[in-house]
């Protein structure tokens, strides 16, 4: 299956969902407000999925993103961070969230690349530990951002009528596309995912690159935390629950190979949009969220089955 055909399939699925939305929801679905709602709700999953796309393309996995989002949101909304933000400016919150995400990701990276722990286990451990630390810091309380109006002035603005958090998603996705397709970083990522041994023997420093990849994934989790802080005006140790599953699903449905070696940012964005549109269609029709979960499961299985079917056909014709 050529990339064009794959993208065509995803676009088709998305259009199908939109048609269902229009037919069942009518004006409530097609309104500008509803579209920006879909995109706003997609922003966190979307941004984190971009980092996840890199990790999965390299043949890895990052189960800790949801927990890291929670930890970053908590750390960036503690009273001391808020005081600092009041004294020095709103950017303190942003830098704190990004730094927490980056450091958590780098810890994952060190353990995976240099400790040779399987990514699944290392990030599973981080999933548990990061959320635990978030609960400890917050005392399991929701931390509301107060007296940091400049932060909200920036992140709740709507340039051209579109929320800033949606713009962040757009910018991160565009940067991710560029990084994956046009830079040496992206080439290394694909090479390591395609054949780590061949990449190593060609002289690529795969340990260092692996470290960077998990750092990147942590960084996008930090950006996700900033978006959540802006949208919910609070930090919480329950933020990002099951986000790892939503992002992995979006990435894989988008056409990135779970085994590594092939990644597509465009596909990931479409995957994210498909799931958030699906959620929206269910919400505006007041349908049971359990049914929605079932539909989501069906989409995941269907997409992966299709992927494998195409892959096996590809192999059969090319060898």
């Amino acid at each position, binding site marked *: 299956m050529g990339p064009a055909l794959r993208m065509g399939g995803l676009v088709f699925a998305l259009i199908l969902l939109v048609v269902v939305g229009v037919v069942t929801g009518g004006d409530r679905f097609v309104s500008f407000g509803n579209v920006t709602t879909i995109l706003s709700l997609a922003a966190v999953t979307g941004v984190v999925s971009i980092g996840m796309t890199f990790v999965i393309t390299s043949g890895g996995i990052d189960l800790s993103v949801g927990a890291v989002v929670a930890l970053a949101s908590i750390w960036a909304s503690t009273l001391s961070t808020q005081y600092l933000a009041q004294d020095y400016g709103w950017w303190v919150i942003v830098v704190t969230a990004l730094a927490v995400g980056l450091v958590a990701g780098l810890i994952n990276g060190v353990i995976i690349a240099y400790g040779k722990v399987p990514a699944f286990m290392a990030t599973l451990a981080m999933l548990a530990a990061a959320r635990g630390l978030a609960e400890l810091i917050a005392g399991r309380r929701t931390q509301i951002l107060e007296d940091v109006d400049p932060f909200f002035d920036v992140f709740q603005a709507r340039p051209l009528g579109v929320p800033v958090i949606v713009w962040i998603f757009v910018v991160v996705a565009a940067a991710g596309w560029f990084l994956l397709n*046009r*830079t*040496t*970083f*992206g*080439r290394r990522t*694909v*090479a390591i995912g*395609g*054949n780590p*041994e*061949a*990449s*190593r*023997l*060609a*002289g*690529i*420093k795969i340990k260092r690159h692996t470290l960077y990849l998990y750092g990147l994934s942590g960084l996008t989790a930090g950006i996700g935390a900033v978006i959540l802080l802006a949208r919910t005006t609070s930090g919480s140790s329950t933020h990002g629950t099951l986000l790892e599953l939503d992002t992995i699903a979006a990435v894989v449905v988008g056409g990135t190979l779970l085994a590594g*070696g*092939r990644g597509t940012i465009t596909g990931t964005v479409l995957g994210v949009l498909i799931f958030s549109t699906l959620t929206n269609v269910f919400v505006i029709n007041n349908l049971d969220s359990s049914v929605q979960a079932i539909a989501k499961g069906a989409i995941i299985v269907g997409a992966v089955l299709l992927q494998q079917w195409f892959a096996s056909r590809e192999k059969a014709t*090319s*060898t």
Partner: protein
Amino acid sequence: MVDVDPQRAEQRDEQPLPLLRMRGIVKQFPGARALDGVDLEVRPGEVHCLLGQNGAGKSTLIKVLAGAHQPTEGEILLDEEPVTIADPVAALNLGIATIYQELDVVDGLTVAENIYLGHELARGGVTRRSDAARNTREILKRLGHPEISPHREVGSLPAAGKQIVSLARALSRDARVVIMDEPSAVLDSEEVENLHRIVRELTADGVAVVYISHRLEEIRQLGDRITVIKDGRTVATSLLVADTPTDELIRLMTGRSVEYAFPERPGVPEDAAPVLEVEGLGLGDVFKDVSLTVRAGEIVGLAGLVGSGRSEILETIYGARRSTSGTVRLNGKRLGSGVHAAVAAGIGLCPEERKSQGLLLDEPVYRNITLSTFARFARGGLLDEGAERAAAREQIEALDLRPASADRDARTLSGGNQQKALLARWLVHGCRVLLLDEPTRGVDVGARAEIYNLIRRLADDGAAVLVVSSEIPEVLGLADRVLVISDGRAVHDGPADDIDEHAVLDLVMEGSAA
């Protein structure tokens, strides 16, 4: 064919009916004829040795017997009845068991579970563990290893123990023909003694053993008769071990029907500068104290059997394995550790397993060619794919890589062209030292000459080339100088002209008999 003097053959001819007979077995693979008329006749209670060089077709023959491959032509008779061995289960049901070199035991299961794997003793889906354990104990006792507990996890056993488990599995299926592929290669001398004892006991019970070994001394001790195959054909069958001199065996194994065309050797000038200097290099138990020098314009070949440490020597020089002793110098400067340092210094490795170690199969050819250099073409981290393609195209043309497309996936190339893509990678890089591990493995005969010419041309341009091959004529024909590796040591170092295939084989076989 060499016929055995019938009078002599009679001495051992107490059981006239052969148990297993193969007649005119042909196995055609796409693009290659692995077997081209093999005859084999195995009698009950004998140790029948199968002899042949690497690539002669021994493994294919074994796989045909084990049901893993279907012969294209020819017939297999068991008790003089034609049989079809459709799959490995059919082989076991016929009483043919195979002990592969890579022991196919499941490490996480117990000894008893391994032995009954695939034919578990069960009633109504519930395994009868105590029965299995009791039978296992009996079989292990018969094999002279009552100390191995049926409940022990196989992963905790040494290689010799795993081999016993493999054998026990064969016996649990009431095997009448046991095929053993280089069983002694993984064993130390004491374990080899025990293995021989077991083989003798099996044959005393009337089981036929087809035994593959490169150790002539072992064949002398253990074997009854020998079949020699070469280039997929039986060249001598049912030779009596006792009556066949070693010289004769080596002559049978080496006399070639396929002639390789090797390029002329221009001769390396005496004053050519040493480029790669390896001194006292060692890697744990794998190889020790290997010293060699490759000069500019010189091709040095490493000859040796599989498992002698050849590939590991290349990989250690390259920094892909961490040496335990010795130094590697490039142009007099000591090489830093790690692959990256070697590549940065201008050393390139074309690995043994092209597909798993060399290529990104689902990426276009040009990205495979520029895998070590794409960062050099890039500016500030931004890829310059135009420059990459141009550099790749230049090499595609220079090496006559076909089809001459930079954008096809590497998967679609033939073995020879995949090898060219790997060479192109290091040419784009500007490597002055090339380490080539089995450069013609999986390359068909026609394309081989092309690869040889290419390697020679690179040397003529001043590259220092170190090449490993399990095909001795290839090493002798291509290299200027040859090191013979046996059991992890260099047992010979001299000009390729001064040694012949026979002498090399002598060296590696004698060396590994210890």
